[in-house]
């Protein structure tokens, strides 16, 4: 273990000196600075410029956010700052730590600085810890590598250092956690363990790459609070990379907006918010949903020129889709470890034509289980699911299949819900073929028509999913769901995997379609900002139960339950 500490003569002197030496003029130079950084990847199709002349600096006690959508070069910038770029990358410009240029440093020299000078918090806590080692061992590894405790220090002393690191990272019971394995911890706890590992080397700068993107909003809030506290209390510099403009505006001193590898906007939070200079920043600001976003209105007025506001729920209209007191339990484990998990417990809701019913809640609330039951996959243990007044349980397989024509489903991840071998045309035509609707030629016309409805160029007909962007794929999935002219569509986190600007486009497409076709939507999401934009009715769920159900305005303006208020307060972007 400690063999890594054995010095090899020569260049090592400089290595040890480098991070220490700048202490003298630490006030002058920022902790981390990139100047004119250009990173290009060599690919079979020529060079791809991922980062193009980026200047970013982080001073002590400063929290700087880098915001951008996928493909903007955020991650490449982080890897560059940490010296973790792959071999295929060509780097120009300079990266300096406390004024010392480390751009040309060898991998060995950089490795000494990582952890002890620059700490790194990775994106996905679920995959960033070694699943077969105890947390304590993993933190200890970071402590031994970076703090270089006395060779004479006892095991117990080192262990204490690891436990202390976990305590600083904000874990309430660090002794117990250090004895546990990653799978025994929740996502938020795992992310804190990663923070502990990043802090173990007592770094001066922390680089956090989307540290909360995989977490629930309430957990995200706690983790970000903690990062802010580290900055204030320990005087660390923090470089926070995020796709969420709301998070960046809430938390940082300065914001750097990136697009296509370039910095398009750079300034204090107040300036960027009140006077965005760049068109792209303005677009991002407009697209990012917040607690106070207005309801989206249809842009295209349909044949029936109805007034814009959504129709109020009419008691005379029977619901399209209805769950009555639905309960569902799952058996997990085998033998003695076998136990029951109650995923849904007495849940009721109704979806009416022309309105959107949102189901919100954090992970584990039972949203997806409910979505599957509503779309006729599986059956509830107790209670009823009715489609157009007919109980699904009373139907045989054939009748169920016919009911499906009225009820379609759009999945969260457009990268897995489309067969990679099918062309767009075949994907969208699949339901038409399954129910033998029309001739081949008619089916083709219908597919072209459907693509136009979701604002996708018919030139994409012959493409395969691999050749489309995430937003385009989700449009294909929506077109497929529309093919049989359903009356209800269940959307399970259908925009969560998309960039905000793409998300805004898809939401607009959905709102327009609703206006034109009078569709009822079940909109499942964890993002309350989006709910405000598209929903008419909201059901808040927690641990398989309905916490609160109300119209969207009532819920946002006058939440009755504590949990609802907690969720609403945790929506990022409150700074606006």
């Amino acid at each position, binding site marked *: 273990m400690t063999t890594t500490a054995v010095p090899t003569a020569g260049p090592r002197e400089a290595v040890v000196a480098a991070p220490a030496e700048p202490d003298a003029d630490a006030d002058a130079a920022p902790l981390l600075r990139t100047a004119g950084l250009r990173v290009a990847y060599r690919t079979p199709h020529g060079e791809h410029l991922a980062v193009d002349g980026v200047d970013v600096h982080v001073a002590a006690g400063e929290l700087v956010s880098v915001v951008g959508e996928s493909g903007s070069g955020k991650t490449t910038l982080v890897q560059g700052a940490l010296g973790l770029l792959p071999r295929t990358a060509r780097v120009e410009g300079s990266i300096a730590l406390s004024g010392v240029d480390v751009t040309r440093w060898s991998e060995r020299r950089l490795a000494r600085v990582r952890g002890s000078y620059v700490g790194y918090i990775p994106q996905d806590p679920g995959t960033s810890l070694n699943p077969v080692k105890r947390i304590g061992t993993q933190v200890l590894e970071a402590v031994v590598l970076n703090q270089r405790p006395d060779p004479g220090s006892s095991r117990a002393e080192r262990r204490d250092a690891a436990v202390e690191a976990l305590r600083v990272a904000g874990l309430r019971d660090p002794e117990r956690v250090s004895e546990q394995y990653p799978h025994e911890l929740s996502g938020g706890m795992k992310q804190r363990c990663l923070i502990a590992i990043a802090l173990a080397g007592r770094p001066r700068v922390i680089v956090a790459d989307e540290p909360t993107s995989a977490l629930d909003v309430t957990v995200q809030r706690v983790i970000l609070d903690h990062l802010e506290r580290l900055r204030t209390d320990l005087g660390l510099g923090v470089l926070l990379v995020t796709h969420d403009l709301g998070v960046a505006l809430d938390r940082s001193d300065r914001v750097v907006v990136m697009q296509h590898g370039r910095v398009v906007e750079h300034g204090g939070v107040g300036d960027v918010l009140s006077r965005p200079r760049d068109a792209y920043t303005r677009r991002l600001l407009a697209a990012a949903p917040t607690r106070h976003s207005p309801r989206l209105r249809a842009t295209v007025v349909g044949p029936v020129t109805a007034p814009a506001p959504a129709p109020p729920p009419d008691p005379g209209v029977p619901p399209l889709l209805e769950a009555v007191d639905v309960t569902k339990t799952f058996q997990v484990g085998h033998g003695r470890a076998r136990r029951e998990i109650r995923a849904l417990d007495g849940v009721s809701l109704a979806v009416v034509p022309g309105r959107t019913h949102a189901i919100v809640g954090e992970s584990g609330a039972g949203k997806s289980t409910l979505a599957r039951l509503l*779309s*006729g*996959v599986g059956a509830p243990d107790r209670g009823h699911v009715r489609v157009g007044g007919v109980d699904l349980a009373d139907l045989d397989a054939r009748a169920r*299949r016919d009911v*499906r*024509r009225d009820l*379609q*489903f759009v*999945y969260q*991840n457009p990268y*897995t*819900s*489309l*067969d*990679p*071998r099918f062309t767009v045309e075949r994907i969208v035509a*699949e*339901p038409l073929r*399954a*129910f033998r609707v029309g001739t081949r030629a008619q089916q083709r016309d219908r597919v072209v028509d459907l693509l136009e409805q979701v604002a996708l160029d018919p030139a994409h007909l012959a493409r395969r999913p691999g050749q489309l962007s995430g937003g385009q794929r989700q449009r294909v*999935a929506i077109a*497929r769901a529309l093919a*049989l002219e359903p009356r209800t569509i269940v959307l399970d986190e259908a925009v969560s995997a998309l960039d905000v600007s793409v998300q805004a486009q898809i939401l607009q497409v959905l709102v327009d379609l609703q206006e034109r076709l009078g569709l009822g939507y079940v909109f499942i999401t964890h993002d309350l900002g989006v709910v405000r934009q598209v929903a008419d009715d909201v059901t808040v769920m927690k641990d398989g139960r309905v916490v609160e159900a109300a119209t969207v305005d009532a819920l946002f303006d006058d939440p009755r339950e504590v949990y609802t208020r907690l969720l609403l307060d945790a929506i990022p972007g409150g700074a606006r």
Partner: protein
Amino acid sequence: MNATPLLDAPPLAAPVAPAPARATSPAARRVRAVLRTPSLLVAWVVVLVVVGWALAPGLFTDVSPLTGDASASFLPPSAEHLFGTDRLGRDMFARTVHGTSTTLSATLIAVLVAFTVGALLGLAAGYLGGLVDTAVMRVVDVFLAIPSLLLAMVVVTMLGYSTQNIALAVGISSIASFARVMRSEVMRVARSDYVEAAHGLGVRRSGVVWTHVLPNSLGPVLALAALEVGTAVLAVASLGFLGYGAPPPTPEWGLLVAEGRDYVAVHPWISILPGLLVAALVLSTHRISTWLRRRAEEVA
């Protein structure tokens, strides 16, 4: 060992110029990718030459494989007799070339049997699950527990000695590995969102299996088939060597090696050159299989 003779064939490859046109069709790009990787190029050349021998042996040698000149026995390899001559003065190169079709057709039949039966069993087990899965996989486990060469020998003994029966036996003994790979792939694909989506759209079960599950699970199984060609060549040659196959004087690779084994100390080329050819073919199919698997992964 001295690997030079087995690489005698590849020189055909050298003159092949790098792809001349800037063609951009997928096929052209694939050909260019092969040309850029020398080991893959050598592997393809070996396989193509051997296939050529099997299809049209007359094009490669005009010497009879069956009649020899007794006065010219045990001649070492030379320009006239590339692989030397045997006890009866028969040209070993001609015998090897003419023996290719026997060995190769047996191999292909074996792989075809293993692939078809194994893939169907795996598809049924993986997609239907439950009792079908348990039943099929326990039988497969039994097959896996018996060494495949031993199993093949048992089957040939039951069916009678002939090359066709060798092919069947080798095929049956490798059904199990195909079934396993196919089952795990089918289970992965059957769980995917697009398969669930297809069910949700109202596509019938049989339609889902043929249009979504089967095409998306075949990639790794095809790569295994390429790998299995190599293994099957070895198995067919081994059984031929042991005398379970075609009777002499029919030229067959395993038999050629067996005929030379009494003279290995004095006239080693009789056994070694056909043996090296088997080795070269096996290595080449392995190389191609790796390439196929990588491509399947890239698609997925």
